[in-house]
Structures are given as structure tokens and as C-alpha cells.
């Protein structure tokens, strides 16, 4: 199983029945594949609808129904379409229970950098800044390191997406909760030790008595 699947499987367990959830483009989208059958999550797509469904079968694409990445999707029973002001009203107004987003860097204050690398990549923040500020729970789903370098830092060095908004970090080796006291290591993947995690994490982790093994629902 690759890192991305481990992360998606673990994040899926954070979502509760009835939750309104916005999944960022890329890896976070994969989370929807692993939501248990008895949990119904309502997916919001910030380009203007709720009750987003999976990608259509080939040949069944509707040009008018795409996700926030521009890819064809379907809508489920109960769906409704709306404009971008309403869509971001839903987001900013606290009506989204959880958002799952990727990241370039996260730090021990819950700061997030995810939208630009000065001089290299300036794609724009799109809806990410609103999502991170507005969603009740912000879950960062990302690989623990990038080219061997830590992404979980004492302090973000890249331009921020938002200040002090991240609630949970899920990587292929651990689950970290962002608290006022700092980053608390809640779970480690099977075969991974607390020390292993700290070694590839720049920020100092708070280690509680009981660090669980990451449950990826297998």
C-alpha cells in the first residue's frame, strides 16, 4: 500500500455520519474512496454544489458538473447547485464540518503553508484560505517529508495560507493533533516508533503516555 492510500484511509476515519466535508484537490480527493458504508458524508464542492458523487463512468461525463479540480464528477440524491458567493458563505460561515487539504509546511502553532513557493510556484490560493479559516475542523493530509526534508516545522518558512487553523495532521507514519501546548503525537503507524517520527519532524512533539497504533481500517 502506498503512502497516499494509508493517509486517505486514516483520514476517512475522522469523518462522521452527516458531516459536510470539503476535500481538497489531489490526494484529499482520494479520502472519499475509504469512507465506510455506514457513514454518509455530504461532500461540498466549492465551485458550487453539495452532495458531490464519484466520477462518472466513461462516456457519461456532464460538461457542467465538475469538481474543484475541473474533473468530471456526478451528484447524488439531495444535491443542489449555487453560486460562488453562496458556496464560500457556506465555507466561511462555519457550515462545513471538516476540510481535508494538502500542505507544503505545517508548524507547531497550527500555521499552514500550502499555496506558493516564492520564485518557483505561485498557483494562487484558490479557495484554500477560505476553507482553512472557515471549516470547523482542518485536517492536513500529506506525506511526512518532502525529498527527505521535514514538512512539520517549528515555524513555517513559506508564505502562509492561514494562521493557527490546523487541527489535525495525518501522514503515512503518524497522526498529530495541534493543541495550544503544541503538537501532540496521537498515533504512529505499525512498525514505526515515536523516535522514528520525531527524527523526521522538525517541531518538538509532545508524547502522551499512550500513543496508539494508527488504524487504517484494514
Amino acid at each position, binding site marked *: 500500500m502506498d503512502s497516499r492510500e494509508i493517509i486517505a484511509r486514516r483520514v476517512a476515519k475522522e469523518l462522521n455520519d452527516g458531516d459536510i466535508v470539503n476535500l481538497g484537490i489531489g490526494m484529499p480527493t482520494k479520502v472519499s474512496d475509504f469512507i465506510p458504508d455506514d457513514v454518509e458524508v455530504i461532500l461540498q*464542492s*466549492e*465551485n*458550487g*454544489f453539495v452532495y458531490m458523487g464519484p466520477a462518472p463512468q466513461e462516456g457519461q461525463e*456532464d*460538461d*457542467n*458538473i*465538475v469538481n*474543484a*479540480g*475541473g474533473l468530471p464528477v456526478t451528484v447524488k440524491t439531495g444535491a443542489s*447547485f*449555487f*453560486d*460562488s*458567493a453562496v*458556496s*464560500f*458563505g457556506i*465555507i*466561511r460561515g462555519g457550515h462545513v464540518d471538516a476540510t481535508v487539504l494538502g500542505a507544503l509546511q505545517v508548524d507547531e502553532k497550527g500555521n499552514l503553508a500550502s499555496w506558493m513557493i516564492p520564485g518557483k*510556484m*505561485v*498557483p*494562487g*490560493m*484558490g*479557495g*484554500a*484560505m*477560505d476553507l482553512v*479559516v*472557515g471549516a470547523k475542523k482542518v485536517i492536513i493530509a500529506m506525506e511526512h517529508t518532502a525529498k527527505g526534508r521535514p514538512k512539520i516545522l517549528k515555524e513555517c518558512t513559506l*508564505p*502562509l*495560507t*492561514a*494562521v*493557527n487553523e490546523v487541527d489535525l495532521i495525518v501522514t503515512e507514519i503518524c497522526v498529530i493533533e495541534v493543541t495550544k501546548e503544541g503538537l501532540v503525537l496521537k498515533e504512529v503507524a505499525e512498525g514505526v516508533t515515536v523516535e522514528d517520527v520525531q527524527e523526521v519532524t522538525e517541531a518538538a512533539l509532545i508524547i502522551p503516555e499512550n500513543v496508539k497504533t494508527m488504524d487504517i481500517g484494514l
Partner: protein
Amino acid sequence: MSKIVTLEKALENVKDGMTVMIPGFMGVGTPETLVDGLIEKGVKDLFVICSDTARPERGIGKLIVDNRVKKLIASHIGTNKVTGEKMNAGEIDVTLVPQGTLAEKIRAGGAGLGGVLTPTGIGTVVEEGKQRIEVDGKQFLLELPLKADVALIRGSKVDKAGNVWYEGATRNFNPMMATAADIVIVEAEEIVEIGEIDPNNVVTPGIFVDYIVKGEK
């Protein structure tokens, strides 16, 4: 006087240097016929306000590639590499705005508001040059309204009074932009008789629409 006009007639209203709002999310909801018409006509030095610059071969992306845009406000340019290249080369002056903030700025422009306070962007580069206002102990940025000379919008069904109905995710920035420009031109995927859109289901009232152009789809 009928609002239905030819593409050429409608685009007489778009001149070099104007501020133009163009809706669309990755091209979905963008009036492709109107955009192609702008390129055909040769309008240049535009100040374009949009959510994203789509891909190089689609929607607003075509205006970027064809050097028609001098200034740009958008929330995302990552799917069209040409935008970033021209930005880095100093050929396009790009301002990036969070997507929800952009929606509110345009809505404010159309609704006569002097601005809105949003928590989005606090503590980031988005805050630069903006007033921070505290309300009930919480910090907000004052975001100012946006208006345009022309809005080029796209309706799935448009009746002859200019009432517009949108299908699926094509709606996105269309309704706000229709309220925030001096001249509003709508590209109709389908033109219908008045009454075919139930007055309860009209999204953009016809009073906002000046010209209707049949789209080629």
C-alpha cells in the same frame, strides 16, 4: 428594443484597456463564444477579473496566451502555466485574491456596499495594504468592492427579457458579475421565450442584462 444582438454588435461595448469580468471555474461557466469574439476583434490591454485562468486553450486562458490581458485579478492561475510565465516576465500585473473574498468583492460592487470584513487572509500576504478591523475581539480584513466596465457572462437558458438560468456548476461567478458591471453581455447556450423560465427559478433577473448573444456551444 430586443436585447438579442450579433456577437459583433455586443462586443462593440468592449474597448482596449477596459475592465472586464469573466466568470468560469476552470472554464466551466465561461462564455467561450464571447471570449473567442474578443480575440477575433483584437481588443487588448484588458484588465480581467476572474476566478482562474483555466488552461491555455480554454476560456480566459486563451486571452492570456494571446497577450490581451495587461492586468489580472484571480484566485488561481496554476492550471495555466502561461499566466505564471507572463507574470514572472512582468507582462501581466497579477493580483491573487482568495476565491471567497473575490466573490464577496464582486458582490459588494454590485450591491452598493463599501466593502466587507472577512477573516480570510489574516496573517498572510493577502493582508498587505489592507485595513484590519476588530469586531468582538476577532480580527478581520476590510476587502473593498470590485466593479467593471463590462461583464461577459454565460447562461444555460436565457429568455428574451434577459432572465438567466444556470445549469450545474456553470453558475459560479456569473450571478455576482452580472450585477457589478456597467454593461452586461450574456452568452446564451439556449435562448427561450419569456415565461419558459419560471419567474421563481430565474437566477439573474433580466434587468441586469443589456445584450444577449447566442452561443455556439
